[in-house]
């Protein structure tokens, strides 16, 4: 990085809001990059991204249609991680499975966060009985362990990746609603909201344009912290046959497919599990690092 950029970033007297923000992000990055475990998490995440983006180049064989003549081959040779009971290359299926994982994580984030923010911001801004009803509903959802509620939703909705995403999103939003409500309560009485109101802005406009944007930063952090959990729940649903429809590769269902031959052909269910573990660990390491940077009180010392 050129020294002039560095000077601009570390200036004691930022001249614009953008400069101050960039400086904060830069300092955060310095702290984050000094944490080797957090950097390991970042590397795992980038590997996941690369695997999803360049799957056709990284996977030597077709992930969906196998060669029955080569079923249940041990790892080695042409098949690095062996083949499954339908003669499909496990390495190729794991590579393509990263797309499923990323898709689920991304879709859950963009579905659950808006549900949470709308419910939380409305409750915080409108107050009164609306707040009571919405927050009681939030508590009711929090009263279930997430996986059990997701199972119930998935059982009622039927299997399939869309339903799995919906089921997970429906269990993931309550913490976001709580955060959004807390942030809303903090800004509801501020002058700029009062000014907007005096200018004749409608409630809808104030919530959408002036309150929700204030909830976003803390919400984004929380969503990123939750991703490891989402991956584990998605894998659990896949393991129980409530995820992606076969023959599409999904790591959880791959473990389940290998379950019946685990004693003789251990590799079929071992390697997909390693993939789930690594990716979930990566997100957890990133989340831990982020927590240290953003909130030193709650982090390693607290």
């Amino acid at each position, binding site marked *: 990085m050129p020294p002039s950029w560095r000077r601009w970033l570390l200036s004691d007297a930022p001249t614009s809001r953008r400069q101050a923000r960039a400086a904060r992000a830069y300092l955060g990055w310095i702290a984050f990059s000094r944490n080797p475990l957090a950097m390991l998490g970042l590397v795992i995440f980038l590997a996941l991204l690369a695997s999803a983006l360049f799957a056709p180049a990284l996977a030597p064989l077709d992930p969906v249609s196998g060669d029955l003549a080569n079923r249940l081959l041990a790892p080695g040779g042409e098949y690095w991680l062996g083949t499954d009971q339908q003669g499909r290359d496990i390495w190729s299926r794991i590579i393509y499975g990263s797309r499923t994982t990323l898709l689920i994580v991304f879709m859950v984030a963009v579905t659950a966060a808006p549900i949470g923010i709308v419910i939380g911001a409305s409750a915080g801004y409108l107050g009164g009985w609306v707040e009571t009803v919405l927050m009681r509903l939030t508590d009711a959802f929090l*009263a279930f362990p997430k996986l059990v509620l997701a199972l119930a939703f998935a*059982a009622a909705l039927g299997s399939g990746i869309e339903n799995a995403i919906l089921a997970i999103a429906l269990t993931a939003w309550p913490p976001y609603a709580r955060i959004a409500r807390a942030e809303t309560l903090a800004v509801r009485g501020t002058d700029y909201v009062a000014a907007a109101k005096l200018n004749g802005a409608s409630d809808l406009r104030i919530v959408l344009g002036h309150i929700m944007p204030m909830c976003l930063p803390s919400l984004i952090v929380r969503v990123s912290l939750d991703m490891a959990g989402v991956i584990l729940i998605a*894998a659990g649903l896949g393991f129980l*046959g409530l995820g992606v429809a076969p023959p599409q590769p999904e790591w959880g269902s791959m473990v389940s497919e290998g379950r019946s031959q*685990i004693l003789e052909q251990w590799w079929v269910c071992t390697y997909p599990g390693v993939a789930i573990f690594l990716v979930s660990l990566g997100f*957890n390491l990133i989340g831990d690092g982020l927590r240290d940077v953003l909130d030193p009180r709650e982090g390693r010392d607290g």
Partner: protein
Amino acid sequence: MISGRVQSILRTSLSVATTLLGLLLVTFVISRLLPADPVLAIVGDHASESTIAKARHDLGLDKPILTQFAIYLGNVATGDLGKSVRTGRPILRELAHVFPATLELATLGTLIGVVFGIPLGVLAATRKDTMIDHLIRLIGLIGYSVPIFWLGLMGLLVFYAKLDLLPGPGRLDFGYEEMVVPVTGLMTIDTLLAGDVALFGNALAHLILPASLLGYFSLAYISRMTRSLMLGQLRQEYILTARVKGVSEARIVWKHAMGNILVPLLTVVALSYGNLLEGSVLTETVFSWRGLGLYITDSIFGQDLPAVMGGTIAVGAIFIVINMLTDVAYRVLDPRAR
């Protein structure tokens, strides 16, 4: 002061009641409004119009939705969770039958988590930022990241198939389960009551692997929270005072600091007990452990939606009760919270 306490009890009961109501609203919505059609599940795809209409009427599905919800609440309140589609037996009785298995597993799991998690957390706090601290942190992080169903399979592969140290899935060796007269439903206790030491050993051997698995997850959470609570205490001035007075380090940590974090730690342990209910769903599936979790997943495979909902209500209700008891215990035990 008395009226204050009565008020707080009333407030707690009210909040538990509304949360329970919300919980039932959620399960009601799932079972009535989502695509899976309860009528088709009972009469099958090829039923005639009149059969379907009759089943609709029998289930009360032709009544207004609010009336249906009121009837549903009344049924649940009187312990009627409906009948299982697969077996035709009352769901509540089936749940009561499988629950002890989960209780046994989760209790031993929590015990393992406490016995190892608290010392590890204390060790990490007293050796903050050393290799030991990082190692314990990593053990915890792995616990948070590993898919439990996969770890269970790996455990079976290593300890059952390769090393032959532990028995395979199930609560007892094949064929033995009918030999135990169920009294408490807890296999270890029932075998002891029957005075059969060999069978007790068998039950315990079957319990070790799944319980250690759950214990590991509980350990990950408990050690992390213990470390953080302990660090919060060790920074306080009274610790400095004690050190200056020459109190031994072990006494400072285990007596002074531990005494102050015992109550919040109780909350942590209770929460992890609740979390194990969730972990037990997949663990029981892997270990063919006939408990609440396997009941739910079996019911999903059997398209038995009423049974799935019954199991979900049971887990949710247990969760709420654990939270409430913890809340009450906190208030009773911690003078600052009064």
